């Protein structure tokens, strides 16, 4: 998994220390601590993982192992308008993959990637509990139901003029 080089400031370290302390710096709570850290920073670049490792008393290799195992964790920042395509069973059988392919084609992005201007990112998720609306796409908090490949253009158009 590729990572973005970031500059770490003292307040970032303070924040991670605070998170780690709330889990008693217990290695067993590593996944929880990573969730909290990602919630705060938006993603988990290598530098942040190193500090989490130090504070949670595990090796950096171990932290990286966990981050690369669970698809929830990401080492690249999400776009300002993160696009999530549900590929759960119901959405999948109703054509989620063709919708996903259309997003990838139009935005020239692969799953897990973020556009160079930081605006869009594409991710897959598993079931949002709206199977009646399958296939489902989410952009940020907004949900789109019964999306067809033809409708992808209209969804993207909604955000074209936004910052």
């Amino acid at each position: 998994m590729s990572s973005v080089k970031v500059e770490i400031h003292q307040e970032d370290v303070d924040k991670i220390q605070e998170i780690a302390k709330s889990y008693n710096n217990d290695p067993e709570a590593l996944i929880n601590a990573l969730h909290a850290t990602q919630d705060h920073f938006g993603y988990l670049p290598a530098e942040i993982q190193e500090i989490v490792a130090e504070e949670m008393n595990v090796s950096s290799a171990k932290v990286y192992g966990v981050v690369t195992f669970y698809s929830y964790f990401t080492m690249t920042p999400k776009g300002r308008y993160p696009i999530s395509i549900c590929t759960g069973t119901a959405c999948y059988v109703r054509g989620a993959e063709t919708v996903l392919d259309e997003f990838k084609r139009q935005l020239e992005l692969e799953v897990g990637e973020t556009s160079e201007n930081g605006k869009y990112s594409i991710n897959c998720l598993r079931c949002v509990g709206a199977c009646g609306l399958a296939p489902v796409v989410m952009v940020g908090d907004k949900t789109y139901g019964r999306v067809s490949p033809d409708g992808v253009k209209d969804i993207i158009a909604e955000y074209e003029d936004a910052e």
Partner: protein
Amino acid sequence: MIKITINGKPVEVEKGTTIYQAAKKVNINIPVLCYMELEDMGVKHNPGGCRVCVVEVEGAANLMPSCVTKCWDGMVVKTSSPRVLNARKTVVELILSDHPFDCLVCAKNGTCDLQKMAQDLGIREIHYQGEQSTYREDTSPAIIREMDKCINCRRCETMCNDVQTVGALSGINRGFEAVVAPAFEQNLEHSPCTYCGQCVAVCPTGALTEVDHSNHVLRALADPKKKVVVQTAPAVRAALGEEFGMEAGSLVTGKMVSALRELGFDYVFDTDFAADLTIMEEGTELLNRLNKHLSGDKEVKLPILTSCCPGWVSFFEHHFPEMTDIPSTARSPQQMFGSIAKNYFAETIATEREDLVVVSIMPCVAKKYERSREEFSVNGDSDVNYSITTRELAHLIKQSNMDFHSLEDKNFDSPLGESTGAGVIFGTTGGVIEAATRSAYEMHTGKHLDKVDFEELRGMEGIREASVDFDGQEIKIGIAHGLGNARKLLEDIKAGKSDFHAIEIMACPGGCIGGGGQPLHHGNSEILKKRQKAIYQEDAGKKIRKSHENPFIQNLYKDYLGEPGGEKSHELLHTKYFDRKKRWIKK
């Protein structure tokens, strides 16, 4: 107790015993690949992942992995029924379907567990074709990772994290992409790896191997312009015979010297000589610090830690950089030898240092890294040019068509081949500190030591403590082998809870006899104990058993070095340590 039947044989086992362990009790050997048990180190690695050990259990619909399935009362097991054998073959074929077919040129050819498995099961065809994993080759100064050969047994991960607490490796990614790697998939060189080589020692395939220097050695031997000097570490002679089918613990010192001469080395010397030299320097440093401490100097750092083991040196540089002023500054015997050979000996035989090639035979993988450290070279010429393991030496002997068994016993050359019993015991856990104690006692008390065997320092427990009476002054000594055990002692020192005067640390379980470059012992600690016995046997047979009584060492100081701990000694025989901890914020 639980009663079960395996292949018709009744077995009684304690609750919690696995089928694999129960079968072992009645000498039924179930093949395993990912499973690893190092009983004396308290290490059990059974992820149950490879599925090679499946067995048939009466009444159960599916075959069961014997390494993780616990016995129940009345269980009836078949370990080699046609159904089991078919399944086992399928499992191995599936593993092989994602494994490169370069066995003929693989470093593990002949010692690979997977190859042996395929051979034992008579696999002649792979019925499954599909995508194969690819992975870049990662070469470091000591270890090569070829992860396309990895079968994900994760034994290396257990050694690196649980036994050694180094934390360089972890399983990363998932599914087909899963692989064992350093953090952020960096090369090993940029990880906290200490090159202890314990991962190499347990890897069942060619995924992790040592960097092979033997061809460089052959090239140097063939070069008429070069004088080639070899030094052999003490632990090598206690294990080399195993590579030629000899019983573990066979001492082959004389045959080894003979083989090295036949290979064409100009001078066959002994690292034990440099071990004696190490004791002079390290012992002097210990006494200096001790005397200052006893006279009330609050600044002086105690305990003093030994510094012979390069894996251990890397470990504290990476993990305890704030404590780099505690270990002795004495170089390791390998490096002391290199320094003396390239300076003193080259001068003696009127040879330029560049034309003198120094080769070391080591039980160790980390020595390859140690020799490459910049501070041990002059104008790009390393004090030790090549370091090869016991296993590589065995290869050299085999490819030279020597019948090792019939080689005559020969003696090391003089003067750098002359050593005492104290130099020999460097090869086992507890040996360095015993050797130091023998000399320090006499230097400190001015009295003659009649009994040189310090039984209280010997043994195989991971952490040992002992007190030695220095004529009324109690000296407290700690010993740890295996870096996980070393970490415990270091944490105590850091917390101010340690009252030791001196501590010996070896990175590998057992000390050098269990080094990452030794013939594979497959976790059988009986083999380690036999090697240890051989080391003490060689010591007991030596006429001189205290380093400071070695007449060649005495001459070296008189003619060349001056005083132990003096200016010349410091220049040639001491070193400094570096803070290698990675930090993300520059202060």
